[in-house]
Protein backbone atom coordinates (compact mmCIF):
# COMPACT_ATOMS: atom_id res chain seq x y z
CA UNK A 1 0.00 0.00 0.00
CA UNK A 2 2.96 2.24 0.69
CA UNK A 3 4.01 2.00 -2.95
CA UNK A 4 0.55 3.07 -4.14
CA UNK A 5 0.31 6.05 -1.79
CA UNK A 6 3.84 7.12 -2.84
CA UNK A 7 2.82 6.89 -6.50
CA UNK A 8 -0.30 8.99 -5.84
CA UNK A 9 1.80 11.50 -3.93
CA UNK A 10 4.32 11.90 -6.75
CA UNK A 11 1.58 11.94 -9.39
CA UNK A 12 -0.03 14.95 -7.72
CA UNK A 13 2.96 17.07 -8.64
CA UNK A 14 3.14 15.64 -12.14
CA UNK A 15 -0.48 16.22 -13.09
CA UNK A 16 -1.81 19.57 -11.84
CA UNK A 17 -4.96 20.54 -13.68
CA UNK A 18 -5.34 24.28 -13.66
CA UNK A 19 -8.51 26.33 -13.68
CA UNK A 20 -8.28 29.99 -14.59
CA UNK A 21 -10.81 32.48 -13.20
CA UNK A 22 -10.88 36.09 -14.34
CA UNK A 23 -12.16 38.06 -11.36
CA UNK A 24 -12.61 41.37 -13.17
CA UNK A 25 -9.14 41.78 -14.62
CA UNK A 26 -8.21 44.14 -17.49
CA UNK A 27 -7.32 40.91 -19.41
CA UNK A 28 -3.61 41.70 -19.36
CA UNK A 29 -2.88 38.92 -16.86
CA UNK A 30 -5.36 36.61 -18.62
CA UNK A 31 -3.49 36.92 -21.90
CA UNK A 32 -0.22 36.17 -20.13
CA UNK A 33 -1.80 33.19 -18.36
CA UNK A 34 -3.12 31.72 -21.60
CA UNK A 35 0.24 32.41 -23.28
CA UNK A 36 1.68 29.82 -20.90
CA UNK A 37 -0.32 27.14 -22.74
CA UNK A 38 1.02 28.02 -26.21
CA UNK A 39 3.87 26.16 -27.95
CA UNK A 40 6.41 28.78 -26.73
CA UNK A 41 6.03 27.79 -23.07
CA UNK A 42 4.08 24.49 -23.48
CA UNK A 43 3.22 23.69 -19.87
CA UNK A 44 1.66 20.38 -20.90
CA UNK A 45 5.27 19.13 -20.68
CA UNK A 46 4.70 19.10 -16.92
CA UNK A 47 1.26 17.56 -17.20
CA UNK A 48 -0.46 20.91 -16.64
CA UNK A 49 -3.81 21.14 -18.40
CA UNK A 50 -6.09 24.15 -18.50
CA UNK A 51 -9.44 22.77 -17.42
CA UNK A 52 -12.71 24.69 -17.37
CA UNK A 53 -14.35 22.75 -14.56
CA UNK A 54 -13.73 23.39 -10.83
CA UNK A 55 -14.67 19.78 -10.03
CA UNK A 56 -11.69 18.52 -12.05
CA UNK A 57 -9.23 21.25 -11.07
CA UNK A 58 -6.30 21.06 -8.64
CA UNK A 59 -4.97 24.60 -8.93
CA UNK A 60 -7.04 27.77 -9.17
CA UNK A 61 -5.43 30.74 -10.93
CA UNK A 62 -7.18 34.00 -10.12
CA UNK A 63 -6.50 37.28 -11.92
CA UNK A 64 -8.02 40.71 -11.29
CA UNK A 65 -9.63 42.59 -8.43
CA UNK A 66 -12.35 41.02 -6.34
CA UNK A 67 -15.54 43.07 -6.07
CA UNK A 68 -18.73 42.58 -4.08
CA UNK A 69 -20.51 40.98 -7.02
CA UNK A 70 -17.95 38.36 -8.07
CA UNK A 71 -16.67 37.40 -4.63
CA UNK A 72 -19.58 34.96 -4.33
CA UNK A 73 -18.64 33.38 -7.66
CA UNK A 74 -15.02 33.07 -6.55
CA UNK A 75 -16.01 31.46 -3.24
CA UNK A 76 -18.41 29.12 -5.02
CA UNK A 77 -15.75 27.97 -7.51
CA UNK A 78 -13.28 27.40 -4.67
CA UNK A 79 -15.81 25.36 -2.70
CA UNK A 80 -16.48 23.12 -5.70
CA UNK A 81 -12.83 22.07 -5.99
CA UNK A 82 -12.11 18.73 -4.28
CA UNK A 83 -9.14 18.67 -1.87
CA UNK A 84 -6.15 18.82 -2.10
CA UNK A 85 -6.22 22.15 -3.92
CA UNK A 86 -4.06 25.25 -4.27
CA UNK A 87 -4.86 28.87 -5.12
CA UNK A 88 -2.55 31.26 -6.98
CA UNK A 89 -3.31 34.99 -7.14
CA UNK A 90 -1.86 36.64 -10.22
CA UNK A 91 -1.00 40.30 -10.88
CA UNK A 92 -1.13 43.44 -8.81
CA UNK A 93 -4.95 43.45 -8.79
CA UNK A 94 -5.21 39.85 -7.63
CA UNK A 95 -2.72 40.50 -4.84
CA UNK A 96 -4.09 43.69 -3.30
CA UNK A 97 -6.70 45.23 -5.57
CA UNK A 98 -4.05 47.14 -7.54
CA UNK A 99 -4.94 50.58 -8.85
CA UNK A 100 -8.59 49.86 -8.12
CA UNK A 101 -8.05 49.12 -4.43
CA UNK A 102 -9.76 52.32 -3.19
CA UNK A 103 -12.85 52.04 -5.38
CA UNK A 104 -16.05 51.62 -3.33
CA UNK A 105 -17.11 48.41 -5.08
CA UNK A 106 -13.74 46.66 -4.65
CA UNK A 107 -13.14 44.16 -1.85
CA UNK A 108 -9.38 43.99 -2.42
CA UNK A 109 -7.08 41.04 -3.10
CA UNK A 110 -8.14 37.45 -3.64
CA UNK A 111 -7.00 36.52 -0.10
CA UNK A 112 -9.87 38.56 1.36
CA UNK A 113 -12.27 35.87 0.13
CA UNK A 114 -10.37 32.55 -0.11
CA UNK A 115 -7.00 31.38 1.26
CA UNK A 116 -4.19 32.04 -1.25
CA UNK A 117 -1.08 29.83 -1.39
CA UNK A 118 1.13 31.68 -3.86
CA UNK A 119 1.25 35.35 -4.92
CA UNK A 120 2.57 36.18 -8.40
CA UNK A 121 3.27 39.92 -8.70
CA UNK A 122 3.45 41.99 -11.89
CA UNK A 123 1.26 44.27 -13.99
CA UNK A 124 0.76 42.16 -15.99
CA UNK A 125 2.56 39.13 -14.51
CA UNK A 126 5.09 37.61 -16.93
CA UNK A 127 4.40 34.08 -18.22
CA UNK A 128 7.72 32.97 -16.69
CA UNK A 129 6.58 34.33 -13.31
CA UNK A 130 3.27 32.48 -13.63
CA UNK A 131 5.03 29.18 -14.39
CA UNK A 132 7.29 29.89 -11.40
CA UNK A 133 4.21 30.44 -9.23
CA UNK A 134 2.62 27.18 -10.35
CA UNK A 135 5.85 25.31 -9.56
CA UNK A 136 5.92 26.92 -6.08
CA UNK A 137 2.29 25.96 -5.56
CA UNK A 138 3.09 22.36 -6.46
CA UNK A 139 5.76 22.19 -3.78
CA UNK A 140 3.21 23.40 -1.24
CA UNK A 141 0.74 20.95 -2.72
CA UNK A 142 3.08 18.03 -2.05
CA UNK A 143 3.74 19.25 1.49
CA UNK A 144 0.02 19.75 2.16
CA UNK A 145 -1.11 16.21 1.45
Amino acid at each position, binding site marked *: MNFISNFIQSSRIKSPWVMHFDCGSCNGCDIETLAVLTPVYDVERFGIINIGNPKHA*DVLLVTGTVNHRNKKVLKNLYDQMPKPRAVIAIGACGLTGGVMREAPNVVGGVDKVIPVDVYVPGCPAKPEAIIDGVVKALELFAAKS
Partner: protein
Amino acid sequence: MTSAQVFLALIAGLFLAPLAVGVLTGVDRRVTARLQSRIGPPILQPFYDIAKLMGKEPMLANHWLAFCSMLYLAGAVTSVVLFFLQADLLLIFFVQAVGSVFLVIGAMTVPSPYSQIGAHRELLQIIAYEPLLILVIVGIFLATGSFKIEAVYAMEQPLLFKLPLLFLVLGIALTIKLRKSPFDISASHHAHQEIVRGVYTEYSGPYLAIVEIAHWFEIVLILCLLSLFWSTSIVGLVLLLGITYFVEILVDNTTSRMTWRWMLGTAWITGITFSLINLLWLYYG
Protein backbone atom coordinates in the same frame (compact mmCIF):
# COMPACT_ATOMS: atom_id res chain seq x y z
CA MET B 1 -10.31 -23.32 -24.39
CA THR B 2 -8.50 -25.05 -21.56
CA SER B 3 -8.51 -23.51 -18.10
CA ALA B 4 -4.90 -22.33 -18.50
CA GLN B 5 -5.86 -20.51 -21.69
CA VAL B 6 -8.87 -18.95 -19.97
CA PHE B 7 -6.60 -17.75 -17.15
CA LEU B 8 -4.13 -16.21 -19.61
CA ALA B 9 -6.97 -14.55 -21.53
CA LEU B 10 -8.33 -13.05 -18.30
CA ILE B 11 -4.89 -11.67 -17.34
CA ALA B 12 -4.44 -10.19 -20.82
CA GLY B 13 -7.93 -8.71 -20.94
CA LEU B 14 -8.07 -7.35 -17.40
CA PHE B 15 -4.53 -6.03 -16.92
CA LEU B 16 -2.24 -6.04 -19.96
CA ALA B 17 -4.67 -4.58 -22.50
CA PRO B 18 -5.74 -1.53 -20.44
CA LEU B 19 -2.11 -0.86 -19.43
CA ALA B 20 -1.14 -0.99 -23.10
CA VAL B 21 -3.93 1.44 -23.98
CA GLY B 22 -2.78 3.75 -21.17
CA VAL B 23 0.68 3.87 -22.73
CA LEU B 24 -0.90 4.30 -26.17
CA THR B 25 -2.87 7.30 -24.87
CA GLY B 26 0.40 8.77 -23.57
CA VAL B 27 2.03 8.27 -26.98
CA ASP B 28 -1.06 9.82 -28.56
CA ARG B 29 -0.70 12.97 -26.44
CA ARG B 30 3.01 13.15 -27.23
CA VAL B 31 2.50 12.76 -31.00
CA THR B 32 -0.34 15.31 -30.92
CA ALA B 33 1.96 17.78 -29.13
CA ARG B 34 4.65 17.22 -31.76
CA LEU B 35 2.13 17.86 -34.54
CA GLN B 36 1.36 21.18 -32.83
CA SER B 37 5.15 21.88 -32.52
CA ARG B 38 5.09 21.41 -28.74
CA ILE B 39 7.13 18.93 -26.72
CA GLY B 40 4.27 17.25 -24.93
CA PRO B 41 3.84 15.39 -21.63
CA PRO B 42 5.73 12.24 -20.57
CA ILE B 43 4.53 8.95 -22.06
CA LEU B 44 3.27 7.81 -18.64
CA GLN B 45 1.22 11.00 -18.12
CA PRO B 46 -2.20 9.19 -18.32
CA PHE B 47 -1.15 7.01 -15.35
CA TYR B 48 -0.10 10.07 -13.33
CA ASP B 49 -3.48 11.64 -14.08
CA ILE B 50 -5.35 8.54 -12.94
CA ALA B 51 -3.26 8.20 -9.77
CA LYS B 52 -3.76 11.84 -8.89
CA LEU B 53 -7.53 11.62 -9.43
CA MET B 54 -7.64 8.49 -7.25
CA GLY B 55 -6.05 10.46 -4.40
CA LYS B 56 -8.52 13.32 -4.51
CA GLU B 57 -11.38 13.87 -2.12
CA PRO B 58 -14.60 12.18 -3.35
CA MET B 59 -17.11 14.96 -3.94
CA LEU B 60 -20.33 14.13 -5.75
CA ALA B 61 -23.68 15.81 -6.32
CA ASN B 62 -25.50 12.50 -5.68
CA HIS B 63 -24.87 8.78 -5.18
CA TRP B 64 -26.08 7.84 -8.66
CA LEU B 65 -22.88 9.23 -10.14
CA ALA B 66 -20.79 6.73 -8.18
CA PHE B 67 -23.14 3.87 -9.08
CA CYS B 68 -23.19 4.79 -12.77
CA SER B 69 -19.41 5.18 -13.06
CA MET B 70 -18.97 1.70 -11.53
CA LEU B 71 -21.50 0.18 -13.95
CA TYR B 72 -19.88 1.94 -16.89
CA LEU B 73 -16.60 0.32 -15.85
CA ALA B 74 -18.31 -3.04 -15.30
CA GLY B 75 -19.88 -2.97 -18.78
CA ALA B 76 -16.62 -2.03 -20.47
CA VAL B 77 -14.57 -4.63 -18.54
CA THR B 78 -17.12 -7.38 -19.20
CA SER B 79 -17.16 -6.72 -22.93
CA VAL B 80 -13.36 -6.82 -23.12
CA VAL B 81 -13.16 -10.01 -21.06
CA LEU B 82 -15.82 -11.60 -23.28
CA PHE B 83 -13.75 -10.68 -26.32
CA PHE B 84 -10.61 -12.23 -24.86
CA LEU B 85 -12.61 -15.37 -24.06
CA GLN B 86 -13.66 -15.38 -27.73
CA ALA B 87 -17.36 -15.10 -27.07
CA ASP B 88 -20.13 -14.11 -29.43
CA LEU B 89 -19.61 -10.76 -31.20
CA LEU B 90 -23.26 -9.75 -30.85
CA LEU B 91 -23.18 -10.37 -27.09
CA ILE B 92 -20.00 -8.28 -26.76
CA PHE B 93 -21.65 -5.50 -28.72
CA PHE B 94 -24.70 -5.34 -26.46
CA VAL B 95 -22.67 -5.53 -23.24
CA GLN B 96 -20.54 -2.54 -24.28
CA ALA B 97 -23.70 -0.65 -25.30
CA VAL B 98 -25.15 -1.16 -21.79
CA GLY B 99 -21.92 0.16 -20.25
CA SER B 100 -21.79 3.31 -22.34
CA VAL B 101 -25.45 4.10 -21.61
CA PHE B 102 -24.71 4.17 -17.86
CA LEU B 103 -22.18 6.98 -18.38
CA VAL B 104 -25.04 9.01 -19.86
CA ILE B 105 -27.49 8.07 -17.09
CA GLY B 106 -25.00 9.32 -14.49
CA ALA B 107 -24.56 12.63 -16.29
CA MET B 108 -28.35 12.96 -16.63
CA THR B 109 -29.00 12.59 -12.87
CA VAL B 110 -27.56 16.06 -12.19
CA PRO B 111 -29.54 19.13 -13.30
CA SER B 112 -26.39 21.04 -14.35
CA PRO B 113 -26.91 22.31 -17.93
CA TYR B 114 -23.33 21.37 -18.92
CA SER B 115 -23.87 17.82 -17.78
CA GLN B 116 -27.30 17.61 -19.45
CA ILE B 117 -26.10 18.90 -22.82
CA GLY B 118 -23.03 16.67 -22.61
CA ALA B 119 -25.25 13.67 -21.88
CA HIS B 120 -27.47 14.44 -24.87
CA ARG B 121 -24.48 14.78 -27.13
CA GLU B 122 -23.05 11.52 -25.81
CA LEU B 123 -26.37 9.82 -26.60
CA LEU B 124 -26.26 11.23 -30.14
CA GLN B 125 -22.73 9.87 -30.48
CA ILE B 126 -23.93 6.46 -29.34
CA ILE B 127 -26.77 6.63 -31.87
CA ALA B 128 -24.24 7.55 -34.55
CA TYR B 129 -21.77 4.70 -34.02
CA GLU B 130 -23.89 1.78 -32.79
CA PRO B 131 -25.53 1.03 -36.23
CA LEU B 132 -22.06 1.12 -37.78
CA LEU B 133 -20.72 -1.40 -35.26
CA ILE B 134 -23.71 -3.68 -35.93
CA LEU B 135 -23.11 -3.43 -39.70
CA VAL B 136 -19.44 -4.35 -39.21
CA ILE B 137 -20.47 -7.37 -37.13
CA VAL B 138 -22.99 -8.38 -39.82
CA GLY B 139 -20.18 -8.09 -42.38
CA ILE B 140 -17.96 -10.36 -40.29
CA PHE B 141 -20.88 -12.83 -40.09
CA LEU B 142 -21.35 -12.82 -43.87
CA ALA B 143 -17.62 -13.32 -44.44
CA THR B 144 -17.07 -16.10 -41.90
CA GLY B 145 -20.53 -17.63 -41.50
CA SER B 146 -20.55 -17.21 -37.72
CA PHE B 147 -20.81 -14.57 -34.98
CA LYS B 148 -18.09 -16.36 -33.01
CA ILE B 149 -14.63 -14.83 -32.85
CA GLU B 150 -13.09 -18.30 -33.28
CA ALA B 151 -14.49 -18.37 -36.82
CA VAL B 152 -12.49 -15.22 -37.65
CA TYR B 153 -9.29 -16.77 -36.31
CA ALA B 154 -9.97 -19.86 -38.44
CA MET B 155 -9.81 -17.75 -41.63
CA GLU B 156 -6.81 -18.22 -43.92
CA GLN B 157 -6.97 -14.77 -45.52
CA PRO B 158 -7.18 -11.52 -43.51
CA LEU B 159 -10.73 -10.18 -43.30
CA LEU B 160 -9.51 -6.83 -44.61
CA PHE B 161 -9.46 -8.17 -48.19
CA LYS B 162 -13.11 -9.15 -47.97
CA LEU B 163 -14.32 -6.16 -45.93
CA PRO B 164 -12.17 -3.17 -46.92
CA LEU B 165 -15.04 -0.67 -46.83
CA LEU B 166 -16.33 -2.01 -43.50
CA PHE B 167 -12.87 -1.37 -42.10
CA LEU B 168 -13.28 2.30 -43.01
CA VAL B 169 -16.72 2.27 -41.38
CA LEU B 170 -15.17 0.86 -38.20
CA GLY B 171 -12.65 3.71 -38.47
CA ILE B 172 -15.51 6.22 -38.21
CA ALA B 173 -16.82 4.42 -35.11
CA LEU B 174 -13.28 4.41 -33.68
CA THR B 175 -12.96 8.18 -34.17
CA ILE B 176 -16.24 8.76 -32.33
CA LYS B 177 -15.29 6.35 -29.55
CA LEU B 178 -11.82 7.86 -29.13
CA ARG B 179 -13.49 11.28 -28.76
CA LYS B 180 -11.37 12.76 -31.51
CA SER B 181 -12.09 15.65 -33.89
CA PRO B 182 -14.35 16.12 -35.83
CA PHE B 183 -16.49 14.07 -33.42
CA ASP B 184 -15.24 15.37 -30.03
CA ILE B 185 -18.54 16.99 -29.15
CA SER B 186 -19.52 15.39 -25.83
CA ALA B 187 -16.12 15.01 -24.21
CA SER B 188 -12.59 15.58 -25.32
CA HIS B 189 -9.16 14.60 -24.17
CA HIS B 190 -7.23 17.72 -24.94
CA ALA B 191 -7.10 21.03 -23.18
CA HIS B 192 -10.56 21.87 -24.49
CA GLN B 193 -13.01 22.89 -21.84
CA GLU B 194 -16.51 24.09 -21.04
CA ILE B 195 -19.26 22.29 -22.86
CA VAL B 196 -17.05 19.91 -24.82
CA ARG B 197 -16.19 18.04 -21.64
CA GLY B 198 -19.88 18.07 -20.83
CA VAL B 199 -20.57 14.44 -20.08
CA TYR B 200 -17.63 14.35 -17.62
CA THR B 201 -18.63 17.58 -15.82
CA GLU B 202 -20.15 16.01 -12.71
CA TYR B 203 -17.76 13.07 -12.34
CA SER B 204 -14.86 14.19 -10.18
CA GLY B 205 -11.89 12.80 -8.28
CA PRO B 206 -11.82 8.98 -8.00
CA TYR B 207 -15.02 8.64 -10.01
CA LEU B 208 -13.50 10.54 -12.93
CA ALA B 209 -10.57 8.12 -12.68
CA ILE B 210 -13.01 5.18 -12.89
CA VAL B 211 -14.71 6.71 -15.94
CA GLU B 212 -11.28 7.22 -17.53
CA ILE B 213 -10.26 3.60 -16.90
CA ALA B 214 -13.59 2.43 -18.33
CA HIS B 215 -12.86 4.52 -21.41
CA TRP B 216 -9.51 2.72 -21.77
CA PHE B 217 -11.37 -0.59 -21.75
CA GLU B 218 -13.72 0.72 -24.45
CA ILE B 219 -10.73 1.67 -26.60
CA VAL B 220 -9.33 -1.84 -26.01
CA LEU B 221 -12.56 -3.31 -27.33
CA ILE B 222 -12.63 -1.18 -30.49
CA LEU B 223 -8.94 -1.89 -31.17
CA CYS B 224 -9.67 -5.61 -30.68
CA LEU B 225 -12.46 -5.36 -33.26
CA LEU B 226 -10.01 -3.64 -35.63
CA SER B 227 -7.45 -6.38 -35.00
CA LEU B 228 -9.93 -8.99 -36.29
CA PHE B 229 -9.37 -7.55 -39.76
CA TRP B 230 -5.82 -8.90 -39.84
CA SER B 231 -6.01 -11.95 -37.61
CA THR B 232 -3.63 -14.13 -39.61
CA SER B 233 -0.29 -12.68 -38.48
CA ILE B 234 0.88 -10.68 -35.47
CA VAL B 235 3.09 -8.37 -37.57
CA GLY B 236 0.24 -7.49 -39.92
CA LEU B 237 -2.07 -6.92 -36.95
CA VAL B 238 0.33 -4.56 -35.15
CA LEU B 239 1.06 -2.67 -38.39
CA LEU B 240 -2.63 -2.30 -39.16
CA LEU B 241 -3.42 -1.01 -35.65
CA GLY B 242 -0.41 1.32 -35.62
CA ILE B 243 -1.22 2.86 -39.01
CA THR B 244 -4.90 3.23 -38.14
CA TYR B 245 -4.14 4.93 -34.85
CA PHE B 246 -1.65 7.31 -36.46
CA VAL B 247 -4.22 8.26 -39.10
CA GLU B 248 -6.69 8.90 -36.23
CA ILE B 249 -4.23 11.35 -34.64
CA LEU B 250 -3.66 13.08 -38.00
CA VAL B 251 -7.41 13.41 -38.55
CA ASP B 252 -7.78 14.75 -34.99
CA ASN B 253 -5.23 17.47 -35.63
CA THR B 254 -6.35 18.51 -39.11
CA THR B 255 -10.10 18.74 -38.61
CA SER B 256 -12.20 21.00 -36.44
CA ARG B 257 -15.08 20.08 -34.17
CA MET B 258 -18.41 19.81 -36.02
CA THR B 259 -22.02 19.90 -34.86
CA TRP B 260 -24.00 16.83 -33.85
CA ARG B 261 -26.22 17.18 -36.94
CA TRP B 262 -23.18 16.97 -39.18
CA MET B 263 -21.91 14.01 -37.16
CA LEU B 264 -25.16 12.05 -37.49
CA GLY B 265 -25.42 12.82 -41.21
CA THR B 266 -21.84 11.94 -42.03
CA ALA B 267 -21.57 8.87 -39.86
CA TRP B 268 -24.84 7.41 -41.10
CA ILE B 269 -24.72 8.37 -44.78
CA THR B 270 -21.09 7.46 -45.47
CA GLY B 271 -21.07 4.59 -42.97
CA ILE B 272 -24.27 2.94 -44.15
CA THR B 273 -23.49 3.49 -47.87
CA PHE B 274 -20.02 1.98 -47.52
CA SER B 275 -21.40 -0.93 -45.49
CA LEU B 276 -24.17 -1.64 -48.01
CA ILE B 277 -21.76 -1.64 -50.96
CA ASN B 278 -19.43 -3.97 -49.09
CA LEU B 279 -22.23 -6.27 -47.92
CA LEU B 280 -23.81 -6.49 -51.39
CA TRP B 281 -20.42 -7.22 -52.92
CA LEU B 282 -19.89 -9.95 -50.34
CA TYR B 283 -23.36 -11.40 -50.88
CA TYR B 284 -23.39 -11.46 -54.68
CA GLY B 285 -19.67 -11.51 -55.42
